[in-house]
């Protein structure tokens, strides 16, 4: 059985969010650099930022009370042995 602390998943999640943030910044920079700051591009940027804030807020509120020291099982041999167990058929 392989287990990892939950905070490792949190760090991976935060690193992924950072990468997404950098890519979103490049998108925004492309709009600025090409002088495409119009009402349409502003509204689309506003919509995406609002959805992102909404998602991050709900993620935070769902994870507020989580104990990050608890472990998560990422591999358990029983998953395979139980699949092949005739009692499961």
């Amino acid at each position, binding site marked *: 059985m392989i287990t990892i602390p*939950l905070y490792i*998943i*949190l760090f991976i*999640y935060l690193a*992924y*969010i950072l990468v*997404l943030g950098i*890519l*979103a910044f*490049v*998108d925004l920079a*492309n*709009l600025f*650099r*090409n*002088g*495409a*700051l*119009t009402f*349409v*591009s502003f509204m*689309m*940027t506003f919509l*995406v930022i609002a*959805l*992102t804030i909404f*998602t*991050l807020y*709900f*993620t935070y509120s*769902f*994870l507020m009370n*989580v104990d*990050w020291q*608890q*472990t*998560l*099982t990422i591999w358990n041999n029983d998953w395979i042995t139980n699949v092949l167990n005739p009692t499961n058929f």
Partner: protein
Amino acid sequence: MNLNSVIKIKSYEKVIYILRRHGITFFPYLAIFTAMLLAPIIVYWLFSLSFTKLIEDPANYPFIVMAASAYYLSVFLFFYSFFVEFYLDCWIVTNDRLIDIHQISLFSRTVAEVDLYQIQDISTEIEGFFPTIFNYGNIYLQTAGAVPKFAIYNVHNPDKLREAIITLSAEDKKYHSGK
């Protein structure tokens, strides 16, 4: 739109058209975006039928929340990137030249231009149900310049634009031949 950050407008040059693809051509992206938003709900429903223990295990709860959050944030970013690529693709028609700005991806962009007097032939194409209904299509230009073929894709009212480009090209030819 501030064009000076993209191209250098000459002193005698006047921007006639800034063309973008018809808005209706963005709808497939919207449909994909909507489907991607709904996908986790269907996946969750299927998992709850088959892997009840996995879903109900409190140890997996934070992982499921973070996975869903990362997925949705990725979908928003992909949607925004598609929009930026769609929106930055444009064609600028001035009284002197035609400029094609093509945003290929987040980190790739090409800019090509052709002088209007070098245009030899222009044709339009409106093909399909939606292009016919919403009056959008492609314009193809044959040129004598470094870029022999030029295409403007999915623009509104291509026939009217073809006529306008022919007129502008004829005026530019007169100017360059000194008449």
